[in-house]
């Protein structure tokens, strides 16, 4: 038996909670695994002693102050790592050589072409594959905080190490299948949720691979530029993080893999700078609230909220926070930001002076904070009067009530798995986040949209009542998971159709919403989708604007189309009939706003699709005419070079043909050269075009000559220099352009001289 020090052997399951002294059982692999130090004993960091079992004798509870309080009864808590005991019983050199990890690592080996992939990456991938599969099975979804971030980080590390060992395709689902197969018997939740687990992994890995590829490209550039110092500047790492969303810890990891360091201090400085910028750019709501939270609020009573019924009221000033430009009143009509709904704005009148309220915040002990333009005129105890910005509030209410209708419609169309995951309601539009795995089909979107509009048309009453949480649950009210409700809850009920616990403000009848338009459906993270919507007047304005945009775009396209048609005719193409095309008529735009007025979202979609189709039709036509024109031009150029096969010169045994043509774009010149090449089997062709803006050369050298050392890129430079331009090209074909059109013939002469004097290898 050995006695160990105190910090090694006092065990607790967290900063607070039950704890006590403990006893540890170690397995001794023998002296040859030891570090050789004289004080090597169980607990040493080397590989000789493996702690397998920890026995804790729980006698105390550690409270928040860190004090140890004796427990009423004495308890035992023990834990032995399965992976460790398996390793000993299988006589395996490491935990990773047991049957818990081996099949996983073998799978990874099959996915890479590397003969001996680094063991470290194999181990990390196998370890993380187990973790992420179990985490998702237990309901964790990737996100940027808390458990979601743990999961995201593990997935990303696994994918990254896959990249390191050359696994090119997404692979996590395949490993996850193996984990499920291996452990499903012991942990049935793995089998129950298997298709869900795989979908989440597929989505998250897919997303991350896109980010990763972009980031890796950028990092390669950084490795090049930092190869002297072997240190990536923190400013660059910050740019990767800020502009491309590439996580800092990944930059560090990849840098390490490549033998580079990252300047973390500079990175932190940049982060701080950015935070500072955000702070000074305006009132940061979070900072504001946290500043207020630090103040003494104990003498303040909760603000009485009258805003459900009233639009204006008087009140007394209760407190002023001059540095935050915040005023607290004894009662208010301003709705404080909360439950997804934005805070109200309006005017508070002090004496005869009106002061703007730019935002209203709440959520600290029932106290409501008015953010105002100027606090100077306020005095504690004085009476003020206030007025809401009613138009804004009303617009917000249409959007809020619409989110309730939307949630009910989503449950109706997609099923009960739809759960609200968040929302944002403003006067201009709303966002609604919910749990659902797949993108909505166009049919589902249309159905949801028209269902909401149907309920608007029915002009249902929005009833507000107060009840106990228990009763609300019995009514079947839906509510956010972790929102805390008090004994008295507010129920917002629309017929039997939608019953929600909600503290927000709403329209009195659904008809006031006017119209609902679903703007977009997207994934914000694996398993969580976001619908954006717009209602009422805002929706109508948006639709009219969109119709006009279609008309303007179509008009532009038609202009281009007509222009091309005229050009085609000039080149000898078929005649163009004006009756072939038609513009978007004013009545068609009227149809759009009429559909909005009728709350007919299905027709609206059809009309808009029709307009989009018209644009597409013209675009197709344009492409066709452009092709026709190109064909006609190549034909005309072909006429200009007619008889070329008999007009070649002989320069030191090489067939040489050069011709100055009229105006042609470079791709037409190339098309002509391509047609000439099979006729002049061996030789050099130079075509020049005198275009309005510049002279253009295309040069082609036959394969047999490139083999003897003639290089187009080199020859074209000689031409380009004379006309004052630049050139370059692929091996088969090169082009150059220059501004001085008068020197085209001189350039060709220069090239001929060069060919006359040159040995082929120059």
């Amino acid at each position, binding site marked *: *038996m*050995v006695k160990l020090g105190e910090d*090694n052997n006092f065990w607790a*399951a*967290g900063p607070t*909670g*039950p704890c006590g*002294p*403990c*006893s*540890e*059982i*170690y*397995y*001794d692999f023998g002296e040859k695994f030891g570090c050789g130090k004289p004080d090597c004993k169980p*607990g040493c960091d080397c*590989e000789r002693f*493996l702690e*397998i*079992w920890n*026995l804790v*004798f729980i006698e105390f509870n550690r409270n928040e102050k860190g004090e140890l309080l004796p*427990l*009423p*009864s*004495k*308890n*035992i*808590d*023990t*834990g*032995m*790592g*399965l*992976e*460790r*005991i*398996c*390793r000993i*019983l*299988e006589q395996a050199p490491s*935990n*990773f050589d*047991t049957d818990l990890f081996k099949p996983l690592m073998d799978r990874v080996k099959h996915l890479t072409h590397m003969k001996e992939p680094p063991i*470290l*990456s194999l*181990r*990390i991938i196998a*370890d*993380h594959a*187990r*973790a992420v599969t*179990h*985490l998702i099975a*237990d*309901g*964790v979804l990737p996100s940027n905080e808390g*458990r979601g971030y*743990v999961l995201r980080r593990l997935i990303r590390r696994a994918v990254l190490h896959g990249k390191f060992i050359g696994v090119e395709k997404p692979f996590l689902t395949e490993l996850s299948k193996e984990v499920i197969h291996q452990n499903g018997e012991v*942990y049935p939740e793995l089998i129950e949720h298997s298709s869900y687990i795989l979908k989440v992994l597929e989505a998250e890995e897919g997303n991350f691979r896109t980010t990763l590829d972009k980031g890796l490209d950028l990092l390669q550039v950084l490795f090049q530029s930092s190869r002297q110092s072997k240190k990536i500047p923190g400013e660059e790492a910050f740019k990767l993080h800020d502009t491309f969303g590439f996580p800092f810890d990944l930059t560090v990891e990849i840098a390490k893999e490549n033998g580079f360091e990252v300047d973390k201090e500079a990175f932190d400085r940049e982060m701080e700078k950015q935070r500072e910028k955000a702070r000074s750019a305006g009132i940061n709501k979070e900072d504001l609230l946290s500043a207020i939270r630090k103040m003494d609020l104990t003498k303040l009573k909760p603000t009485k909220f009258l805003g459900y019924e009233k639009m204006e009221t008087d009140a007394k000033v209760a407190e002023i926070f001059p540095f935050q430009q915040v005023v607290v009143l004894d009662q208010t009509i301003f709705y404080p930001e909360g439950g997804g709904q934005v805070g109200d704005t309006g005017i508070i009148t002090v004496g005869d002076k009106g002061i703007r309220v730019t935002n209203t915040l709440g959520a600290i002990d029932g106290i409501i904070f008015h953010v105002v333009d100027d606090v100077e005129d306020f005095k504690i105890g004085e009476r003020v009067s206030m007025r809401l910005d009613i138009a804004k509030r009303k617009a917000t209410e249409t959007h809020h009530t619409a989110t309730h209708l939307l949630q009910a419609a989503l449950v109706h169309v997609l099923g009960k798995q739809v759960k609200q995951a968040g929302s944002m309601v403003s006067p201009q539009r709303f966002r609604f986040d919910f749990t659902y795995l797949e993108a909505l089909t166009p049919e589902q979107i249309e159905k949801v949209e028209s269902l909401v509009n149907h309920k608007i048309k029915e002009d249902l009453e929005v009833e507000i009542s107060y009840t106990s949480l228990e009763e609300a649950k019995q009514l079947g009210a839906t509510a956010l998971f972790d929102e805390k409700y008090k004994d008295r809850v507010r129920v917002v009920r629309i017929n039997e159709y939608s019953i929600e616990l909600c503290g927000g403000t709403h329209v009195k009848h659904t008809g006031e919403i006017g119209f609902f338009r679903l703007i977009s459906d997207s994934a914000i993270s694996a398993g969580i989708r976001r619908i954006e919507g717009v209602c009422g007047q805002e929706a109508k304005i948006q639709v009219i604007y969109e119709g006009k945009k279609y008309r303007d775009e179509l008009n532009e396209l038609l202009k281009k189309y007509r222009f091309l048609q005229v050009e085609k005719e000039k080149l000898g193409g078929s005649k163009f009939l004006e009756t072939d095309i038609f513009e978007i008529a004013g009545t068609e735009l009227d149809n759009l706003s009429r559909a909005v007025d009728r709350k007919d979202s299905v027709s609206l979609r059809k009309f808009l699709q029709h307009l989009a189709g018209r644009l597409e039709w013209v675009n197709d036509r344009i492409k066709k005419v452009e092709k026709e024109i190109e064909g006609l031009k190549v034909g005309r150029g072909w006429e200009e070079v007619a008889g070329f096969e008999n007009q070649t010169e002989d320069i030191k045994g090489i067939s040489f043909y050069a011709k100055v043509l009229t105006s042609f774009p470079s791709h037409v010149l190339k098309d002509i050269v391509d047609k000439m090449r099979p006729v002049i089997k061996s030789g050099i062709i130079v075509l020049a075009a005198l275009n309005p803006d510049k002279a253009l050369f295309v040069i082609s050298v036959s394969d047999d000559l490139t083999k003897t050392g003639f290089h187009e890129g080199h020859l074209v430079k000689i031409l380009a220099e004379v006309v004052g331009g630049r050139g370059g090209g692929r091996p088969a074909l090169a082009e150059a352009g220059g501004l001085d059109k008068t020197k085209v013939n001189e350039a060709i002469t220069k090239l001929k001289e060069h060919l006359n004097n040159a040995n082929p290898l120059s």
Partner: protein
Amino acid sequence: MKAKDVRKKFLQYFQEKGHQIVPSSSLVPKDPTVLLTLAGMLQFKPLFLGLEKPTYNRATSVQKCIRMNDIENVGNTSRHHTFFEMLGNFSFGDYFKKDAIVFAWVLLSNGFGIAQEKLWIAVFFFFF
């Protein structure tokens, strides 16, 4: 011995010693003070604190756990993981130190057949 058999043998051994077999709890703990389930005892915490009355005095479980503090070690050593399974036995006001050590020692040496000279026990002396 395969992992499957190790789990089974462990649970059976403690079941024979009067322990109730309790299934693993979720990696997402009910306890709001902890982010992820770190150990087998977490689901028994209310019992240890005397907040809930247990229907059994002895329990045993195989608990799935996640610990992120060792993530940098994973793969670099032979023995660190983020996800692992913890075999555990628990007593709520029932047996204490001596029995706990004897149970463990007998299972390792007799049950799993590990040579006794390979095993070390480190004890902690605790003074106030």
